[in-house]
């Protein structure tokens, strides 16, 4: 009797582990972003910057599926881009979707760009990871840019235009207006071969953003080229 109970107990525990394993592996989670709104201003004068581009990237390291998940890559799983109105104000709706992506749902980073100002990334939340919360009084103060063409290209590209949102699916299309504007600012500034190559990279990234190309799909070189030819020349 004791042995039977022991065996049942072990089987029960084992079943629990198997159930937990399957459950852990396959249950989608609800990913969401809270509403975001605010104003973009000139840091020196405090005046609003109409037409400033505000793009949010929801990013996370991937948490491996099941017990064999790895300390995986960092991915961007959602994007939302908008433009400030005449008063420098902007608003981004909240969003929600079910996803199998094993990511940590948290506040996004904000990428803010306006011609003549330093392209700047704002971290919305510091400290431990927390789920997104509505942030309707954001204030992004941009510093006027002063520097060489080379410095400007670096400012616009590194850590900014080279972010993209690979796994943002259709949402990454919202980044297109900002990417396009950045590209058209970089292109005439480029003078060295490496700067021209950066400009071409931005064109490519702009195209893949606009086309919402699936990173796990085959490369779509011709689609990209056609898009650039038709929209970025």
């Amino acid at each position, binding site marked *: 009797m004791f042995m039977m109970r022991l065996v049942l107990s072990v089987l029960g*525990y*084992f079943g629990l*582990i198997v159930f937990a394993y399957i459950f852990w592996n396959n249950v989608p989670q609800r990913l969401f972003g809270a509403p975001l709104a605010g104003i973009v201003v000139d840091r020196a004068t405090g005046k609003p910057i109409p037409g400033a581009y505000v793009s949010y990237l929801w*990013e*996370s*390291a*991937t*948490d*491996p*599926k*099941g*017990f*064999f*998940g*790895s*300390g*995986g*890559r*960092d*991915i961007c799983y959602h994007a939302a881009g908008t433009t400030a109105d005449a008063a420098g104000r902007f608003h981004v709706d909240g969003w929600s979707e079910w996803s*199998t*992506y*094993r990511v*940590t749902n948290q506040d996004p*980073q904000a990428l803010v760009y306006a011609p003549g100002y330093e392209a700047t*990334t704002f*971290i919305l*939340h*510091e*400290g*431990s*990871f927390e789920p997104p919360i509505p942030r309707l009084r954001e204030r992004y103060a941009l510093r006027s840019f002063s520097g060489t063409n080379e410095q400007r290209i*670096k400012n616009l*590209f*590194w*850590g*900014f235009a*080279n*972010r*993209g949102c*690979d*796994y943002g699916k259709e949402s990454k299309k919202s980044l297109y207006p900002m990417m396009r504007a950045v590209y058209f600012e970089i292109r005439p500034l480029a003078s060295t*071969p*490496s700067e021209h*190559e*950066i400009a*071409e*990279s931005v064109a*490519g*990234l702009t195209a*893949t953003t606009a086309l919402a*190309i*699936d*990173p*796990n*799909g*085959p*490369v*779509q*070189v011709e689609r990209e080229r056609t898009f650039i030819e038709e929209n970025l020349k």
Partner: protein
Amino acid sequence: MNVRADIVVLVLTAGLSAAASAYEQATHALVTKYAFESSPLAPEAGNLPPLVRSLGLDTWSPLGAGYDYFEMSTQFSNGIPIAHIAQAYEREIVKYLGANPDIDPIRAWLMYGAIREDDNKTEDPPTPQDVAPGLRRPLSHFYDPYNNLKLNSPALADLAREINKAPDWAMGSPDAFEQPNTPQTPRDNTFTVFDAREAMLRALTLETYDGSGYVDVAGASTPAERQRFRRMYWATVFRALGDVLHLNQDMAQPQHTRNEPHAGKYCSWIPRCPGGHSSVYEKYMKARALGTTAFDLDQPYNKPVTIWPLAIPAGSYPIPAFASYADYWSTGKGPASLVGKGLANYSNQGFFTAGKNLDSTEYPSPPHHLDAFTVRTMPARRWDGTVTTNPAPTYVLFGSVTDSWQGSVASNVPLTTFGLWDEFLEKRGALPRYTLNRFNYDAMADLLIPRAVAYSAGLINYFFRGVLEVTRPDEGVFALADHADPTGFTRIRAKLRNATPDFAAKNGSTQVQSMTSGDLIAVIKYHRDLKYSPSLDGVVGVAPCDEPLTVVIEQNPDATTHCRDGVEQIIVSPPIRGVSIGNGSEQLVEFDFSATPIPFGVTDVVLQVVYRGTLGGETHAIAVGSVDLSEPTYFTYHNATDYIRIADRVYTRPEVEQDLNLISQIQPRSCVDEGVSPPVLRPDCAQPVSLDLAVMFDEQLEPLAMATDLRHRRFVRFAYLTVADESASPPAEAARFARLKLVSQVHGSPTAGLPQQDSTCMPRDPVEAKARLMQVRHITWQQYALPISRMARLRGVNGWTTTSCVLNGSDAASETPDDRKAKMAPLKRDSDEFKPFPVTIMPKYLAGQP
């Protein structure tokens, strides 16, 4: 055993198996980009470098459309490849680094491989997967040189089969150190050195070695498909090599050489974070690679970290030149590891890790006693550069890092930090501990990343070290054929010199890279001349195919025009087996193309010679030499002694006979019968002659081609292949063979040469013999020149270098021009006159001849 224990074991297994992330993919891609730029594959002053030309990759789209490649699977017989398409994923990452994949396909594919080596089937969203079922590739990204171990933990026993030492995984060998030339068959990893080598052989020849001979691997595919396959194999070479570089770059991450998992998993469930802490160093390096101002950390930190941007240093560390692949990982085990020269040796003995810091005694170096360090008190500076207002300082321990390869020591390196602060200088704990913060990681990166770049560049150099210099034989041409015979070229003769540079053995001595008992294969690459006709009436170089843009479409040289087939084809010779060429030695070789002769109707001709065999310590190495050949270059010789030159004009005999003014100029005067009125030409003078001809280059005594009894109104024409670019190295030798010497004499005449009074030949001997060109000659991948040689016509016959001999009727100086080109009537078409008269070709150039 209770339930909790069961769970722990299972989770431990899972956690550790997942613990194998390495430098992040963007970091690998950037290091690979830097390595490429330090390697001989990188452009030189904006031009394609010699190595790229030697590999034959100085063509349009040499690696294909940018996405097709093969997986060299050993799961099937004889490595039948599986076609794959690159994913948008790797292309995006390359662009994130400011590199356009379309500008340099070699760089792109190396970076693709470096990215895709991290394929891991357990992620969602999934990483792309090449093999099915997918692999946990990162498990094999570790190598502890001190203990000679792969990623190792009792909890990983269930996954032992999946885990390999990084150098073994990179080589594709069961033991990269002890059996470097033995491929593991079958093997899970199909992007190894062995696979890159096999792909390279196929890319060059479309053949593989089946154990007894070389067999075609494309079957009866169309020329276009065969070209596509070759390009896919080239893409595979660089893709696989990129994977290999990734595996070496991981050795510049001390957690990968000190057996420290860093999955960042299960820390909240199980004490002490059994899968290892999330790697701060790797996440931080990725942020630096991309220039971002923040990065996220997994367990146990679970937080974003804000930083100021700081570029990753490429550095200028000397590029190692070790004589075996494994040495780039490690040159010594156990205590010998501490003075080893491999990258794993360096990082293992030189640096602490988050989990194996100074208070760990697992490794003897860096030392774990304080007197080996200089301790300095420093304010606690956070990762974003701000200094905390809390006055509690940090104690930074500065030590030395020894570089046994360079024999140098980096002093005052901040190897670790001691104090109450956490690694982010944000929280204070109750007890002091050793941590690594940004200050320490920056110092690590300054030393490790430039070495990762240099070691990767060294691996590229080593893989492509085999250099064959291909030059012309003494006769001055690579191939020679009578154009009266439609067969084409049946033999290639060339001098080969083993110009492979020396590499260093483990003990520092020079290891000469001799070629031993290998096989030589000649490959002729060409495009078909679609207008070619044996009469040369139609050929590239003759209207309408005499303008570059009628021959090639500017935007796409791959496209076929009505003049030139856009597809590059190859003809491969049978191998010459058992060849040994000592380093620096030269050898004359003859390749037999009699089974598949090289046709006359070709453009863009390139000769590649491929050596496959032992090179230094590698048994199945490949060495390549290429020479850009001329297009079939024609020498035509007309016996035009049916014409008589008087002063600066030529005339037919009837014209002379009817013109007293011309007769009055005839020399010698003995040829004129002045005993009659009006005077007439004597019948035995100024009559057409039959000629014997011998042609050779400059001082060569042995004729290349000979014709006997060449009657008037007939011509001979032979074709040869020489160096296309006379400025190519070695230029002195190229220039030496730029002139053809002619010896012609009246058939049956005992005199050695044709006396001037008998004839005058234009142009005069020696004849400038320029190479005939029609080729897309790339300056960069996107820019190319299009030299095209236009054919000249004489007597209705198209030719390239053309000499004609007429009778000399007035002692005219032979070097002065005359009007023969315009004056001489065309030869009769549809008659023997219009066909080349047979010439005898030097037997050395005919297959089957001694």
